[in-house]
């Protein structure tokens, strides 16, 4: 059985965003890139399924983007994925373009179980898992915090407002992993060494016309610092008065 994990290479969450010269993207100078945090849960879950199957399956990490994405694929390989595929495109793609490229590759590989992070922490769309599933005619469950695959039957818990939904479906399936699904492992030194010998296949991502056009990017309006009302509980009545009379929120 082949299991695909879709991974993305994103700015570290500690990044302070600066607007780039094109006024449409961020300035990459000084930005550290990492594996999209939600993708780590996706990789971990794929590896657990492989281990449960008695290693009778292959985990393939797929990424769409430029050469720099190989770093993230390599991280997946170091955690234990078997091989990587880079669908190359040096230009920024919208979610449709990414999903089209992923779907094409997943179909060619014949993966029946696909993991993605529930969203990428750069554009925060949470749209690629569902689009990819539609292009493949696969089932899809997003924001998954618990998963069980038994033969053809898939049971997952997905997070909703104020609780969880238990969702049932059948393979083939795409899972959008949420934090809480598992505790991702750290890559061992042995894993990191082994990853260097594993293959990352490179091929051009299939062309796709974008639907979304970014006109400009800007910083959110800066919030003015307010008042420090005191340093102990004597400030509490004044705080409550301001919340009632000035802000009118309680």
């Amino acid at each position, binding site marked *: 059985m082949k299991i695909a994990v879709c991974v993305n290479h994103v700015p570290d969450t*500690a990044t302070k965003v600066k607007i780039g010269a094109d006024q449409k993207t961020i300035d990459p100078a000084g930005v550290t890139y990492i594996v999209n945090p939600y993708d780590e849960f996706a990789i971990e879950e794929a590896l657990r399924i492989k281990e449960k199957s008695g290693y009778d399956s292959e985990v393939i990490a797929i990424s769409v983007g430029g050469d720099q994405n190989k770093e993230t694929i390599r991280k997946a390989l170091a955690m234990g994925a078997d091989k990587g595929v880079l669908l190359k495109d040096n230009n920024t793609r919208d979610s449709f373009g990414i999903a089209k490229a992923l779907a094409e590759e997943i179909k060619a590989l014949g993966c029946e179980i696909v993991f993605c992070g529930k969203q990428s*922490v750069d554009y925060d769309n949470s749209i690629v898992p569902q689009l990819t599933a539609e292009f493949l005619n696969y089932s899809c469950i997003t924001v998954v915090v618990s998963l069980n695959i038994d033969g053809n039957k898939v049971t997952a818990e997905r997070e909703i407002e104020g609780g969880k939904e238990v969702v049932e479906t059948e393979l083939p399936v795409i899972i959008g992993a949420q934090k809480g699904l598992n505790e991702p492992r750290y890559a061992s030194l042995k894993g990191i060494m082994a990853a260097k010998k594993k293959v990352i296949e490179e091929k051009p991502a299939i062309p796709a016309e974008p639907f979304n056009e970014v006109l400009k990017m800007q910083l*959110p309006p800066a919030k003015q610092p307010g008042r420090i009302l005191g340093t102990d509980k004597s400030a509490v009545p004044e705080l409550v008065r301001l919340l009632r009379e000035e802000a009118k929120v309680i």
Partner: protein
Amino acid sequence: MANKILAILEQRENKLKRTAFEAAAFTARLSSELGLEAEAVVIGNNIENISEIGKYGIKKVIHFRNEKLTNYSTSAYTKIVKDYAKEAGTNYLIVSGTSLGRDLAPHIAARLNAGCVMDCTDIQTSSGEVTYTRPVYAGKGLIDVKLKSVIKIIVIRPNIFKPEIKDENGKAEIEVRNVENPDLKNRVTEIKKSEGKLDVAEADIIVSGGRGLKGPENYHLVEELADALGAAVGASRAVVDAGWRDHREQVGQTGKTVSPTLYIACGISGAIQHLAGMSSSKYIVAINKDKEAPIFSIADYGIAGDVFEILPALTEEIKKIKS
């Protein structure tokens, strides 16, 4: 005859959610700005408050009914909305960015070959062209986007667009269509509620705790203040990663991005990931020992003191005014 704008209204337990009225009001607004005919779609069994939709400027509601559709089903809901959007000749679909809407919208987008804007927080229309504003990097940046597709799907962020009533006596025509054999390839078999607690994603007031509380055993101070205010309990990433609190309470990048009316940060210093997720709150209160903490740079009101002293006093004071 493609000249319709369609609001997809969410019900839970046979009741339209507040976000459904936000979507209805937003749809009515955009329909008048673009000169489109506004309609709404509701999927579910018997919906108690369906008639209220008329107040928000929607004249017609199509209610797709089947007992099995009370709970969400990605596959069934997708097919129903896609089929109706095609039948009606829709060029705009408006969806709320809830857990249901965020899951559903991209599926419909793929089937209708429609572009989709997630988390829209503002729109500008000029000569029939719409520009959408949405946050990126958990709110550290904002982008303006245009959609080039014929059919467009706009997923609006909850709590941003007010559910304004257009006409207190407004009535909507409700057309009920019974759905035969819904496509239940995906089906919800059970909903596990988390003990009647408010969710940070939907709350009007949030009280969040951070490492300044020193340990999970002190979190009751946050919970008591939240109870007094009728607020949801939130948490910083540090305390979630330390295992004090469940991830569902986490506010910030890799947690939830929230925009409540009031956000009270207790013992939270304000890491950049946290600030990104809550700085669009209308009013922010910070209680933290360290007066240099970054949280004070975005707080409207702050007390630079000990959470262990201030939280009980604040809870008492709130209880006093509420009684």
